[in-house]
């Protein structure tokens, strides 16, 4: 990993030097990062964290963040595809919710039209039950879901989002019909958490960070994390450890516009690479509770293709997409 990073950085440096020779791109990067959601959400905080670290490390001279709200990021994506074509100064943040939104909203644009630069973070989801629930293990929950799919009430984030997808995958893995799951979509982590604390639902799904303090105080019982490996310092097993073959993370990544030149791609990769390797970025990840899930451009592109396939299948199985 270290070698990979070092070589990437070297590539970035080489690209920067190469660019330095070309008069048109002699100036250091002056970036505009689009957060295709309102201020305060996950994509907005990711964009603003990038802004801070890119400038702090000198990877970019100036960074401006713009918010374009709408429809799970698809409004922003459509605008980005138009405006950032061939642009060496515009980036956009996106994530798994956007993959789902493109499919269920039948958006005219999709992620194959933009240039993936890097996957940055991937937060594990956590499956919890209220503290006085009779369900104690993932096997208990799987049993309940299989036995009475429609009466098992799930609480989580927006319909078709990562939480919903995990509930559907879990039901399938438990041998139940995913089309029958009773998933109550709440508009924010807050309301879903209130429903969980009130003990009115069977199980809840959310980003681990959102439920963390309630899990630590024992108000909620964490059954499993959805990531491939455990979180450092967190005593919650993964689904895979407990024999449920599901791995799903709420990933966020960064994209550039369509039709980039090789030099432009290399310049972006270089800047992002400087950022993720830096001390301030490590600090941001730690304080925000984000899990590093860095993937360079090509690996990220194939990851998105696979994710698109999987999310599409799940959304069809729960009737959100045709």
């Amino acid at each position, binding site marked *: 990993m270290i070698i990979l990073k070092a070589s990437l950085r070297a590539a970035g440096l080489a690209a920067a030097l190469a660019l330095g020779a070309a008069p048109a791109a002699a100036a250091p990067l002056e970036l505009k990062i689009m957060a295709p959601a*309102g*201020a*305060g*959400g996950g994509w*907005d*905080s990711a964009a*603003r964290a990038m*802004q*801070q670290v890119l400038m702090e490390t000198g990877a970019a001279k100036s960074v401006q963040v713009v*918010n*374009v*709200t*709408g*429809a*799970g990021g*698809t*409004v922003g994506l*459509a605008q980005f595809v138009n405006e950032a074509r061939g642009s060496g100064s515009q980036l956009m943040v996106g994530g798994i919710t956007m993959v789902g939104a493109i499919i*269920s*909203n039948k*958006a*005219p644009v999709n992620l194959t039209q933009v240039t993936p630069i890097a996957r940055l973070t991937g937060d594990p989801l956590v499956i919890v039950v209220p503290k006085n629930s009779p369900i104690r293990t993932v096997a208990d929950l799987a049993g309940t879901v299989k036995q009475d799919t*429609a*009466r098992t*009430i799930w609480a989580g984030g*927006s*319909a*078709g989002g990562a939480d*919903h997808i995990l509930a559907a995958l879990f039901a399938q893995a438990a041998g139940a019909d995913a089309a029958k799951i*009773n998933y*109550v*979509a*709440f*508009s*924010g*982590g*807050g*309301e879903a*958490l*209130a*429903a969980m*604390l*009130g003990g*009115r*639902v069977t199980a809840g799904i959310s980003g681990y960070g959102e439920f*963390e*303090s*309630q899990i*630590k*105080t024992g*108000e909620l019982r964490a059954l499993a994390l959805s990531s491939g490996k455990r979180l450092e310092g967190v005593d919650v097993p993964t689904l895979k450890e407990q024999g449920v073959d599901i791995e799903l993370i709420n990933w966020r990544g960064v994209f550039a516009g369509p039709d980039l030149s090789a030099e432009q791609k290399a310049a972006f990769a270089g800047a992002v690479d400087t950022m993720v390797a830096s001390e301030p970025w490590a600090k941001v990840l*730690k*304080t*925000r*509770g984000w899990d590093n899930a860095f993937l360079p451009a090509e690996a990220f592109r194939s990851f998105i293709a696979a994710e698109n396939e999987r999310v599409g299948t799940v959304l069809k199985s729960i009737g*959100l997409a045709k």
Partner: protein
Amino acid sequence: MDSLLSLGHGFLVAFEPTNLLFASIGVLLGTMVGVLPGIGPALTVALLLPVTFKLDPGGSLIMFAGIYYGGMYGGSTTAILINTPGESASVATAIEGNKMAKAGRGGPALATAAIGSFVAGIIATIGLAFLAPVLVKLAVGFGPWDYFALMVLAFVTVAATFGSSPLRGLTSLAVGILLGLVGIDQLTGQARLTFGVPELLDGVEVTTLAVGLFAIGEALHIAARHRANPEKPIPIKGSLWMTREDWKRSWKPWLRGVAFGFPIGALPAGGAEVPTFLSYTTEKRLSRHPEEFGNGAIEGVAGPEAANNASAAGTLVPLLTLGLPTSATAAIMLAGFQQYGLHPGPLLFAQEPDLVWGLVASLFIANAMLLVLNLPLIGLWVRLLAIPMPWLYGGILVFAAMGTIAANPSVVELGMLIGFGFLGLLMRRYDYPVAPAVVGLILGPMADSQLRRALQMSLGDPMILLENPGSATLLALAALALLAPFVMKGLSRYRIEED
């Protein structure tokens, strides 16, 4: 007693010169962004987050809280003066506030808004300091059925209150509810009434409708009648300051506004709009001068303004005690906490007493600063109204369009604003009240998804609405509010016949 001691210690923290400086920067910025439509406190805090990264956590959080309170304060100014509510929480204020301004009483309207916000801010902050742990338990116990019952109560009271006849009020409300259906359905993720326009997928923005109906509709209406009936600039009548009578009519609405705003603001899905409308309708019912409502009644400004500021303090309850952000600004403040490695939640009060109590104490200080800042400005603000009519309304059109574009740079949004402007013109022309449409847009989607959530969780059994004590009580109140006027009418007729 423990809380008192901690609060005293908090004041020591808040009175540190640097923290005082941060609080004053915060309220100043907050007031400014509150006055400018389109730039809300949420975006301001988001913009400042990276800048404050290196600063001391206490100081910057104090500044953020100042911005939040200041924004709530500033929003009322444009609502009163030019009928352009900068945020949805100021819509109720615009109804009577602008009528007062037009009657030459802009000074007292701004004053009762400023003092009411101050009083509400202080009381609600006391509530935050002492009642937070109790309140948060109640708030968490509030289920979808309770929310739905609260919405029903709001519908019933609001629809009957506006306009010259209940039918006109209900028609306008129905328009709002219809607009509220547009967009992605929260529970199934399916698009409704969007006609393939991606910008409509997120539904109609409340401020776009409010600014269109209120400000643009009004400007068009004035322009349409200008030749036949040229209006003169508004002379300022009487004192800029509140009279004895104004004080007498304001203090009760302030207190009642807090009683609505603080607890509802503390609910995870409560928000600031519902309490402002509940406060408005309550004041209209209780007022000794109901005939003044619709023509500029001071109670109708005092109550909602107090309610909206109290709800801002209310949102801090779940934020600090549970780490639940219930508004966009609170969400960014949560990010602010996390930036410093602090995790709001049950443990925060125990782990970081200095910071939490310093924050609470500085809310008191921010409130006092806002009052000092805003009262002298009133004299300056009301001079805006002396601008000749064509200039003033031309300016309002520019200001309203600019604000909408700033909030969401899209052609569709601007088109909707203009469309709603013409709708507002027609509604004024044919004497339909515009406020219920805004209420419908705010409450409709909430009632829709909360009812369906409730039924989803009860596996389809509607009795859940009556089985829970909270929702049953609220529904009973709604029934009472619906039937009471008829019963009273019947009784009074009976009495007259008896005479």
